[in-house]
Structures are given as C-alpha cells and as structure tokens.
C-alpha cells in the first residue's frame, strides 16, 4: 500500500495517448480503444466512486483492517470514475487518469457484498479469486448506485459460464506461475507454455542477474496490484515496461497491454477451432505464407527448426482464415516470428488480431492503405519537425520511404537487432502506434548530421543501416564522464523518441491522417483501376472507355467492397447483378410491370440464365472479367452472332438444339427483353423512322411545294405529335413479332401437335382476365408442355439455323438483334448514380434533344418525299412501316397543327407527351435527357401484358 504513495512520479510523456482520438469515434469506441477492450464492451453504467485495495497475500486479516479501521489508513483511497461493461469493471482515477487504472474482468470476482460504511451511504466489497479485495464506495445519489449494483449483479449472473474458464486460463499465465511458485511455495508447478525463447533462448546478451532483478520487480508489482485479468496499472507499471520487460514476462505483458489477453479469454478455444476447421484447405494466402515461412527471422535458431516453423505457420494461417480481407501480407511473418519468441501460438494469434484491428489498421490490408497513409503522415511530421533535413531530402531526391516503410510495416523487427526491436515493442503495445512515429523521428534526428552529407539513396540507407547495427555502442564514446560514456545509442534513441518527440501525439497523427486520407484512397483506386483494366480479357465490341465505365458501375454496385481498403469481396452476387444491369440496360431498368409477380419472375429467370452463363468459374458469383466477357458477347455488332448468343443462352446442354421447353422459355425471355418497347417506354429505329417520315410528310403537306426550293429547313416552332398512336403501333408490332415467333417456332420445328398449338396460343383473348384465371391457365400450359415433352413420338426441337431463320423473318426481331438490344445497353455513358430520373430516360428524348440532327433528318425526308411527290401524286399518303390500320388522315390533323395554342387543347396529351419540339430543346438538351418518361397508360399495358394470350 505504501507502494501507491511512492508512485506519484511524473511521466507526462507517457500519458499522451488516449482520449484524443478523432471526433468521429463514439464514447464507447474511445473507451474500448483506451483500455483495449473487446468490441462487445459497451459502457452499461458509470458512476463516481472511491476505490481502495487490499491484497490477500501474506497475513489474511486485511479485510477487517481496511473496512473497519479506516482511521489507520491502511489503504490508499483513489477517487475517480467507475465503468461497468458486460464483462469488465474499469476504474480510473480523477487525478491524472493514469495514477490508478483498474481493469477487472468480472470472471475474477468471487464475491460481492455490501459493506457497512460510516462515512458513505453505499459501498461494495469485491473479493477476487486471489483473495484480494476491492472496496468501492459510491458517490452520488442512492438510486443510481443501486442501479449500478443491480446491473453488476445481473452481469455476474450471465457471466457464470465464462467464469468457469478462469482456472484453465490462469494456468497459461506466467504471472500466476510466479506468484504460485514464490508465495504459495509450489515448487513442482509447471511453467506455463510460452514462447520459443523458453527453449531456444531469448535474443540479446542478458545477464541472468539483470533478468532476475527485473522479474523480482514485476513479482512485487503483481503481489500488490494484481495481475492479468484483474490488474491495477499505475505509473510504476509503465515504468517497469519502459525499463524493458524481462523476457519471461514479455509475452504476458504484451498480451495485457494490447488487450489480446481479453480477446483470448473471451474466445477460449477459437484459435484451435479455426486451425481444425481449416485443416488441409488451401488459399492464396496459404501459398504466400508457405513461401515466407523459412524467411522469417532466419537468424533466430528456432526458425531453423520444424517446431518454430510450424508455430509460425499455424498462427499466420489461422489469421488468414480469421480475417480473409487481410489474408497474409509480407512483414506479418516477421512480426509474428517476433511475437512467438515470447508468446504461445494462441497468445500471438490474438496479439496479431489486435495489432491489425486496433494498432495499425490498414497496414497489412490488400491495398496497404494504412501503410501508405502513415508514410505520408511520417513525411509530414519530418517536414514539420525537421524542416532543414526535409528540404535536403527533397532536394536530393532521396526516397524516405525506402528506409521508413519497413520500420512501420515490420515494427522495426527487420531494421534493429531483435533485442532492441522488442524493447520498442514493449512501449508500442503500451502507448500505441504513435510510438512508431516517435522512434522513426528520433532515428532521423539523431542521424541528421550524417544524412545531411548523403548524396543519394544509397548513402542514406547505409547511414541508417550502420546506425541500427551499432545501437549497443556508446552514444558518447569520447566523453570523459564514465556515466555519460555508458549511455548506449539505444538509450539515447529511447530518450529522444519518448522525451523530445512526446509532443507528437496520437491526436496529431489522426489529424494528419485525415488530411491525406482522401488523396491516398484516390491514388489507390486509380492504381487499382488502371491495373485491372490493363489485365482485362480481350474484347471485340467494348472500347476502353466502355470498359472504364463498366468498371465504375461494377464496383459502385458492390457496396460492401471497399476498393481502397481492400475489404470485402470484389465478386458480384446475383442480387447485386440485377441492380448492376438495371443501371444501364433499358430492359432491366425498374418499370411499372415489376409489380406484377409473374413478370418479376420472368425477369429473374432471364437474368439468372444470363448470370449463370457469365459465371465462368461456376461459383455463383461474377468477377469483373466475367461481366466484361459477358457484355462483350451481348453487345456484338454481328447480327448472326447476337442471335447465336441468345440461342446459346437457352441451349443449356449445348447440343445445338432447343427443346420444346427451352423454346417456350426463350420466347418468354424475348418477351421480357422487348418489354420496354412493347410498353412504349422506348422507341426502336422502325418507329423512329416512321415518326420522321410522318413529320416530313406533314411538313410537306403544310408547306406545299415551296419548301422544296429552300436550302435550309427549320423545324417548326412547336410540334405535338400523337404519342399514343406511335406507342400503340409499336406495341402492336412487338406483339405481333412475338406471336409470329411462337407460331413459326412450332411450325418450323414441325413438331407441335396442332391442337396444342392452338391451345397454347389461343388460350383466351379476354383482355380483362383476372389474375386467378391467368394462373390457372399458366398451370394448364405447364401440364400441356410436360405432356408434350414426355411424348416420345413428338419431334421437339428447333436448331440454330431454324432459329436464325425465324428471327430474320421478322423485321422487328431482326432489328432487335441487330440494333435495338445493343443500343439499349448503355455502356458508353457515365452513370450518375444520384440521378434518379435516369432509368426513365428515353431514347426518344435523345432524338429530340438533338434538334439539329432531327432537322437534318427531316430535311432528308422532305427531300425524298418531295421527290416522290413530284413523281407521283401530291396527295399520296405514306405507308406506315408497321402497317398499322389506324386512319392516318385524322391523326394528321394533329400533326399539321404546329401552333403552340393547340397544345392547350390537348392537356392530357401534353402531360403524357411522348415528345414535343420547340426551340428550347436545342438549348436544354440535358434537361431533356433527365425528363422522366411516363409509361404507357394503364389500359394498354394490361391489355398487352401477356403475349401468350394474344391472338395473332
């Protein structure tokens, strides 16, 4: 207890860590980070309290002394704040937040009792597994204190299963072993399984005496302040760490400071389980690990033996399974090799977990963004703190990172002799990653004079290399003062790092990181994109600009994948695939019909077919290369290839023949793909041509012969065109194409029973049929199809040439494969993800937005019409491309009227307006692009919703 009195020495430079993180962290996150608690530990309760401690070791009467004889002042009382999380009681003093930090896993609590107290209203006496007692005197209103206690009570109850793991856990603790051996006098107790150093010696030339003296200090500390899962950290604790942890204790203290111990306790058995579950499995990470096993601290004797190699292999592979986002990164092998000298496999595993998650996030990730970022931060610190040196480095084009990057990435393990590197690690685990910056700055500072003489990278590297190799030598060999002479370069380094550069704080690092983060991420993304595009499969129909757009849309769709951080899978699942296609394929955009379950099912069926076809590795996921290869096939400019590809989508067994069932599915797919044109959301070239013809005709009709002599034809100032008419015509054309297709398919297959064919196609012409009847009919169809398929006498296939012939026989479908489909897949446009209107952007709008082009087209029509008119009669009416039977004369009345007045008479028409032309269009091309396009009126959609019902 006198201990606490003696420990109030100042060590301000070690208290810089913590409570100074980026403001984006929540209170719980900050709390967990500060005390290195696992992710499950949220603050449930907190209160002001006074805490005092009594040890059990030695004479056992402390309890009554402390509680009842408070006048004797046997215990030092700390006042501060007490926190309760699901598995921990944490107390920190109010004085400097570091004089007394108690971190207590509640599994170590044996008993909690209310303590009679004269001066305080409410006090708890907590007895630990060691017999040590903690007296907690609550400050504050009674009600809150009661609440705290009842929460503690319920936590303790829930924790009973965990508490059972305690004895086994304590057997792995060296501190428990020390106590048991020296206090309880157990001489035969087994040394806990620890690091390779146990058998292969620890690095460096430590005199036994020094090691023993240090162990003794820790022994005293543990006796007074507790250990492992229930420890009070005082300034003395940190001082003991700073003077260098004795080798035998090192593993446990690293584990404790890093919070890995809490992870190991909370996840008992998980390490073994990961190894067992993945025995015999291979992965890229495993291959990479194997390459490096023999290349990890090869100078340490254990790593020339199978035992050492096997431990290293186990920890690295276990981690690669635990965190596949990181997998394995070179340098981890060296770091873990360092850990394993002092730690058991399980300890090292959890230490590695916390290293990657808490200490240096992003260092070992697939993109190494953390490493790149911290190099930038380091450079910024050098520039800020040592401007002369920085200027010299820049002037001489010296790559600072060639020396500094390995420092950070391998935590100095590859740079310094092992015995010194582990000393840096002692402080690193206690103080956090800022330690790396402080040491790195100190190295440059100490060698600044020499570096300022260096001409190039080679000399710079040689200076640093030489420095690290002579860390054990005197820092002042020429001093007359022997004490001064005894100071080693390493000691000098520690002092420079942790005194002079204590001004470099975690908070500063966070701020600088924040500053450069965006730029680094941007660079990584650019680099990744460039690399991936370079290694794209060869494409025939996609330009490099197309590929770039596809790349962007692909990764924008996979929201869980963070390119710059390298986390998440870069593959695309089916649901994301649907989203992805809906961004730029007109046929896959969300539409009104999506609310129809049957339609939605068809859509999914088709997309699933496409997805499976593209999934080259048959893993149920698409890579970017799969998507590119697939789109390349889909976008072929060759008509026959396009037809072939569509055929092959349905020819699952690849026998060049489609069976009856497959033909039906194919026709469903065709229906689905052509839906946007059938429902009038887009126009195809035939309709476009038709419209242009009509415009031309009407202009002729309006202007008569005069126009022919004009060189320049201006578009009329206002045109309204009967959108419904064209929609209806186009819809009819598509329906007809579809029904012709089915008919011809069965006809040319010469396979179909005529009665059945009629049945299939002529099931009903009832337009207002309800859903139920429809389903019943579908079922009936299913059974008919099934029967037909079962009938062995039934010739049932169409082959590719037949299929081609059928497609080519229909103008609409031929156009669909030669142009319509291809031009409806917009890989050439950059997709603005925020533009909600984009899905309805009509190709039709596009035509009109480009007023000049329209004018030219119209002029061409006019010319041709005029020529025709001059040959034949002026009254001749043009024939519609789709051969619609609607009376054209009536419609032309609309077309003829170019005055804007007329528009007001057609309000309804305007609202639905398929298109309108006025002068503004030329200037507002972009606005036009984004104008949502209203779907066809409900009536006609319903009417045409199912082709099967349509009678040819």
């Amino acid at each position, binding site marked *: 207890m006198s201990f606490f009195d003696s420990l109030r020495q100042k060590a301000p430079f070690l208290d810089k860590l913590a409570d100074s993180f980026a403001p984006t962290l929540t209170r719980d996150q900050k709390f967990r980070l500060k005390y290195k608690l696992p992710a499950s530990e949220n603050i449930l309760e907190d209160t002001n309290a006074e805490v005092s401690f009594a040890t059990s070791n030695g004479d056992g009467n402390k309890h009554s002394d402390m509680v009842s004889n408070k006048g004797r002042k046997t215990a030092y009382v700390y006042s501060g704040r007490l926190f309760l999380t699901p598995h921990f009681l944490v107390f920190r003093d109010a004085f400097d937040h570091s004089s007394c930090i108690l971190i207590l896993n509640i599994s170590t609590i044996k008993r909690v009792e209310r303590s009679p107290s004269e001066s305080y209203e409410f006090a708890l006496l907590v007895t630990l597994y060691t017999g040590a007692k903690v007296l907690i005197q609550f400050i504050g209103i009674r009600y809150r204190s009661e609440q705290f206690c009842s929460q503690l009570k319920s936590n303790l109850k829930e924790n009973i299963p965990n508490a059972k793991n305690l004895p086994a856990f304590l057997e792995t603790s060296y501190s428990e072993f020390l106590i048991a051996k020296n206090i309880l006098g157990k001489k035969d107790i087994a040394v806990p399984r620890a690091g390779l150093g146990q058998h292969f010696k620890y690095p460096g030339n430590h005199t036994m005496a020094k090691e023993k003296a240090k162990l003794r200090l820790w022994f005293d500390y543990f006796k007074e302040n507790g250990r492992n899962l229930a420890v009070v950290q005082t300034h003395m604790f940190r001082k003991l760490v700073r003077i260098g942890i004795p080798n035998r204790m090192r593993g446990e203290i690293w584990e404790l400071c890093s919070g890995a111990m809490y992870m190991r306790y909370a996840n008992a058995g998980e390490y073994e389980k990961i190894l067992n579950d993945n025995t015999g499995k291979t992965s890229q990470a495993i291959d990479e690990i194997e390459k490096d096993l023999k290349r990890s601290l090869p100078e340490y004797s254990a790593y020339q033996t199978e035992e050492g190699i096997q431990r290293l292999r186990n920890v690295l592979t276990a981690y690669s399974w635990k965190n596949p986002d990181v997998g394995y990164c070179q340098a981890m092998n060296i770091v873990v090799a360092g850990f394993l000298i002092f730690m058991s496999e399980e300890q090292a595993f959890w230490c590695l977990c916390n290293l990657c998650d808490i200490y240096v996030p992003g260092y070992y990730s697939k993109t*190494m963004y953390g490493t790149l970022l911290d190099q930038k931060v380091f450079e910024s610190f050098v520039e800020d703190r040592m401007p002369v040196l920085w200027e010299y480095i820049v002037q001489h084009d010296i790559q600072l990172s060639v020396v500094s990057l390995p420092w950070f990435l391998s935590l100095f393990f590859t740079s310094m002799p092992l015995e010194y590197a582990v000393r840096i690690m002692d402080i690193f685990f206690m103080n956090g990653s800022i330690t790396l910056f402080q040491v790195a700055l100190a190295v440059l500072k100490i060698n600044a004079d020499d570096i300022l003489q260096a001409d190039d990278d080679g000399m710079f590297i040689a200076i640093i290399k030489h420095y690290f190799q002579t860390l054990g030598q005197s820092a002042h060999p020429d001093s007359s003062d022997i004490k001064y002479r005894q100071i080693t370069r390493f000691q000098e380094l520690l002092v420079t790092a942790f005194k002079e550069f204590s001004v470099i704080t975690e908070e500063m690092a966070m701020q600088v990181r924040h500053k450069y983060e965006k730029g680094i991420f941007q660079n990584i993304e650019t680099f990744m994109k460039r690399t991936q595009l370079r290694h794209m499969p060869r494409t025939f129909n996609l330009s490099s600009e197309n590929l770039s757009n596809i790349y962007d849309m692909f990764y924008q769709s996979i929201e869980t994948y963070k390119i710059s951080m390298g986390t998440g899978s870069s593959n695309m699942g089916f649901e994301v695939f649907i989203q992805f296609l809906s961004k730029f394929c007109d046929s896959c955009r969300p539409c009104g019909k999506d609310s129809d379950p049957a339609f939605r099912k068809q859509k999914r069926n088709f997309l699933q077919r496409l997805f499976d076809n593209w999934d080259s590795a048959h893993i149920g996921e698409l890579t970017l290369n799969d998507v590119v290869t697939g789109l390349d096939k889909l976008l072929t400019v060759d008509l026959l290839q396009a037809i072939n590809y569509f055929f092959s989508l349905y020819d699952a067994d690849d026998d060049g023949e489609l069976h009856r069932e497959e033909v039906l599915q194919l026709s469903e797919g065709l229906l689905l793909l052509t839906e946007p044109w059938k429902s009038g959301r887009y126009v195809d070239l035939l309709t476009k041509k038709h419209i242009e013809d009509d415009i031309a005709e009407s202009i002729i009709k309006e202007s008569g012969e005069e126009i022919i002599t004009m060189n320049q034809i201006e578009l009329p100032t206002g045109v309204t065109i009967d959108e419904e008419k064209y929609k209806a015509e186009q819809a009819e054309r598509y329906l007809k194409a579809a029904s012709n297709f089915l008919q011809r398919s069965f006809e040319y297959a010469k396979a179909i029973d005529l009665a059945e064919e009629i049945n299939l196609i002529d099931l009903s012409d009832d337009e207002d049929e309800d859903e139920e009847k429809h389903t019943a009919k579908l079922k009936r169809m299913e059974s008919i199809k099934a029967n037909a398929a079962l009938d062995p006498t039934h010739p049932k296939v169409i082959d590719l040439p037949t299929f081609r012939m059928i497609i080519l026989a229909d103008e609409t479908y031929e156009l669909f494969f030669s142009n319509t489909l291809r031009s409806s897949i917009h890989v050439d446009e950059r997709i603005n993800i925020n533009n909600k209107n984009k899905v309805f952007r009509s190709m039709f709008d596009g035509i009109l937005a480009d007023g000049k082009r329209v004018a030219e087209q119209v002029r061409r029509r006019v010319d041709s019409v005029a020529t025709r008119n001059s040959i034949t009669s002026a009254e001749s009416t043009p024939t519609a491309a789709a051969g619609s039977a609607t009376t054209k004369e009536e419609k032309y009345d609309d077309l003829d009227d170019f005055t804007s007045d007329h528009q007001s008479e057609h309000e309804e028409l305007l609202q639905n307006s398929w298109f309108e032309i006025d002068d503004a269009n030329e200037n507002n091309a972009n606005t036009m692009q984004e104008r949502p396009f209203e779907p066809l009126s409900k009536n006609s959609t319903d009417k045409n919703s199912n082709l099967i019902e349509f009678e040819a």
Partner: protein
Amino acid sequence: MNTSVTSIKLVLLGEAAVGKSSIVLRFVSNDFAENKEPTIGAAFLTQRVTINEHTVKFEIWDTAGQERFASLAPMYYRNAQAALVVYDVTKPQSFIKARHWVKELHEQASKDIIIALVGNKIDVLQDGGERKVAKEEGEKLAEEKGLLFFETSAKTGENVNNVFLGIGEKIPLKKAEEQNNANEGESNNQRVDLNAANNGTSANSACSC
C-alpha cells in the same frame, strides 16, 4: 582511365520469392543466402562495373514481390532506365505475373526503358527439379515485346552478371559524356556521380576532377 561514370537506375520486378533479391545479392556481393527475408517495400543497392572501358554504376531498386505491394512499385520504377522482370522457371504463375509487369512498364514507365526478362532458378533443373516455363516461351515473350532475355541461377551465379552487362551495353553511353559536363548539383533523372570512389556508400560529396 576515363573517370566519367554512367549511372543507371534499374528496378527489379516480379512475383514473390522468384529470387529478385538473390539476383541482386549475387551481382553486388557475389553471395547467396538460402532463406533470405522477404523484401519489405523496397531495397536499394549499388554496384559498379566496367563495360567497354566505361564505368557504369547501377543503382538497383529491388522491390517487394507480393501482389499487394504492387501499388508501391511506381514509386520505384519512376525514372528507371532499366528493369529486370524476374520469374521462376519452375513456377508458371510467376511467368504470367512477369507478363503483367512488362505490360505495366510499357504503359507507365519511361518510354525508352530497357527491360530484361529473367527466368531464374535454373539450378533447380540441374538438381532434378521440373521446368514449368519453357525457354522458348520466355524467348517468345522477349521477342514480341522487345526485351532482353536471360535464364539465370542466383544460387550458382550462372548468367547473373551477363544480365547486367547486357543492360549496360544497351544504355547509350553517349549520354554520359554529355552529362559529364553537366552541373552535378542539378537534380537530374540520370544521376551522374563524378566520384571515382569504388562504392556509393562513402559520405564524400566533393568533386575532385
């Protein structure tokens, strides 16, 4: 003796554990280490050789091979005049990676960079190991892309020096003469070291000529 020295910035690229660092170690120190620690980030070494009575100083940037370090590579091949793209003749995957590196260099590095394709570890074949990348494949790639081609063993030293000599011969030495007259203080892509000192590690920056 001509005191002018041509500096050649040379970068080594290739998959992990194909022997990049070992090739450098053999060239620079005529040494070999069986289990060499992987290169973290990059390493830098220099070596001087005399080619056609002319001294050439190689400034060698040896890079980390693991895929995820690839984003660091541009930092090191920036301004490089020569590159060794190394693969392991017993590992087909490393040859694919070599192709990628060649492609990247042609797109991103200096336009007139001289690239040598190096199939390493041919000693393994003499010890009964199986060759997985035919010599012809390497030759073919080299011919297609206009690369120098060598097969080497860093372990036995076979052919290693020829790689560097081959590169040295291809670098136009004429430039060096021009640079000889250039002011040394100027920051230049192709650094010229006027010191006749035998290695680049001395802290001597005075010009004595």
